[in-house]
């Protein structure tokens, strides 16, 4: 049973979105004694969307990889709904271009999941104050690799689902040649040469 405790004036409420129960247990213990109080825990995007409405936390700590999607998806959904709660995204490993993707989705910060509680607390403090707190261990997107357009992202989703160029062309309502051009642009922007590499890079960087 969750014991409700009255918030003190100095406490900042946090909703944790993390699918690993052991990591959630560590966070509970690690935040003890800090100004942060966990007011809810979600283990999926769906749970998070529902809990955020009910708990109205001051800040969100969101793991990037969840069973029903990725953290950047949750950020996009919340921003579309007008939810402005600061969001700190947690990632397992550093990825070139991740910060740019997180920022484009509408997050305020990112932090690597290393087990160092001070790093998480520092990131949370900064986003709670209204600052940006992007982890500099994520290398910047290499020069020349621009962000994907919404249309290119749409095409890449279809590539990831295993669709052929012809099927992608039919679904997007364009010619086969246009799809080829679009894919060439996507590869250049992601710095890859093949479909599988493009899907993999997009997953790692939070684009898909």
């Amino acid at each position, binding site marked *: 049973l969750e014991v409700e405790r009255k918030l003190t004036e100095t406490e900042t409420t946090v909703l944790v979105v993390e699918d*690993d129960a*052991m*990591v959630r*247990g*560590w966070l509970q*213990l*690690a935040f003890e004694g800090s100004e942060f109080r966990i007011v809810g825990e979600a283990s999926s995007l769906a749970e998070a969307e529902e809990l955020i409405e009910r708990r109205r936390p001051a800040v969100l700590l969101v793991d*990037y*990889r969840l069973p029903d999607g990725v953290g950047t998806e949750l950020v996009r959904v919340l921003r579309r709904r007008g939810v402005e709660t600061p969001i700190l995204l947690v990632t*397992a*490993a550093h990825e070139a271009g991740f910060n740019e993707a997180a920022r484009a989705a509408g997050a305020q910060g990112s932090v690597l*999941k*290393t*087990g*160092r*509680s001070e790093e998480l607390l520092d990131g949370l403090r900064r986003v709670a104050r209204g600052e940006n707190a992007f982890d500099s261990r994520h290398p910047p997107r290499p020069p020349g690799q621009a962000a994907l357009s919404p249309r290119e992202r749409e095409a890449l989703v279809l*590539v*990831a*689902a*295993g669709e052929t160029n012809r099927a992608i062309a039919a679904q997007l309502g364009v010619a086969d040649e246009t799809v080829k051009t679009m894919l060439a642009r996507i590869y250049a922007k992601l710095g890859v040469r093949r*479909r*599988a590499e493009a*899907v*993999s890079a997009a*997953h*790692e960087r939070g684009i*898909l």
Partner: protein
Amino acid sequence: VSLDAEADARTRLRHDLHARLTVIVGYAELLRSRDDERVRQQAVERILEAAELLGRDIEALFASWELLAERSGDEPA
């Protein structure tokens, strides 16, 4: 298997391995910084659990690596 499924399986495994390490490092840090019997007991239990899961994940990683090597006709090093 779609490209999406392959990429997803790879990133899922990477995520799980990092989650175990996070738990081990995170609880070890608490053991070092907190003088509290409740924290100590919980930390030791969780570190042992996470290490066991990490071992299973590593075995799964090797099994899939061997499968891939068989498919491509190479022997694992």
